[in-house]
């Protein structure tokens, strides 16, 4: 493991000590846990936001969040976010394409 120095305001240091008491662990252990969970959450919320704004695909969001595409779908579902975001007109167009180009050319 490596050492890093982080400057913390007094109240956050108190919170960290409180956390380590609650978790019955050392201050370092509590800081590592908070940092880890915080990084995961920050990446996921950034990924979801960018997905909602149409800046990344679901797969792109999964990469931003550092999770699998499957996990990303579960996360979006949990938040009530649609994955199939196209219209019935798109579905009709897709269907016609499959009927005319793919089914007849089956192999």
């Amino acid at each position: 493991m490596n050492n890093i120095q982080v400057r913390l305001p007094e109240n956050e240091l108190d919170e960290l000590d409180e956390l380590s008491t609650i978790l019955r662990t050392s201050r370092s252990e509590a800081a590592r846990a908070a940092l880890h969970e915080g990084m995961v959450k920050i990446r996921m919320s950034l990924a979801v936001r960018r997905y909602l704004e149409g800046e990344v695909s679901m797969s792109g969001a999964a990469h931003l969040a550092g999770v699998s595409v499957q996990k990303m779908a579960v996360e979006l579902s949990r938040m009530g976010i649609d994955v199939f975001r196209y219209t019935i007109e798109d579905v009709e167009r897709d269907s016609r394409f499959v009927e005319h180009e793919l089914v007849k050319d089956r192999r």
Partner: protein
Amino acid sequence: MSDLRTFVDSSTLIALLSIGELEVLRRVIGRVHITEEVRDEVLAGEGPETLVLLRAMNEWIKVHESPPTPRTGPRPELGPGEMSMLSLPQKDNLVLDDLLARRTAIVRGRNVTGLLGILLAGARTGRLGREEALRVLEKLVRSDFRMSTSLYVEIRKRIEEI
């Protein structure tokens, strides 16, 4: 013999695997193709359903090494699977369900379709029975791959009208 190839994206495969209906693709389209990047995205899920993909890869899903993605090519906002699909030859058909990936592909003049269109076409051509198509739609709407209620209602109506 036609050299028409249809490549499928990871989100489409994961959606079908999650409801145990990967065979829908085979029934409607027949043999399909995936890039190595798409395969890796699906296998990263590590669920038991990835075994179903591995089995299908021995039978009716062919995996291809994709050409290197050009620097001026697909947008970095897309995932590696989608980028690999956009670098395939222009004549290959693409099955994409992500809105951004679809838009990018359409702007590039690609032939694009999606899972919901495949389901509807399957029912219309008789490759899937009407009841079967409705059953798959029901499973999909209850899965982690959400769609709006209005989209679900419209597709259901169209299948029921067949």
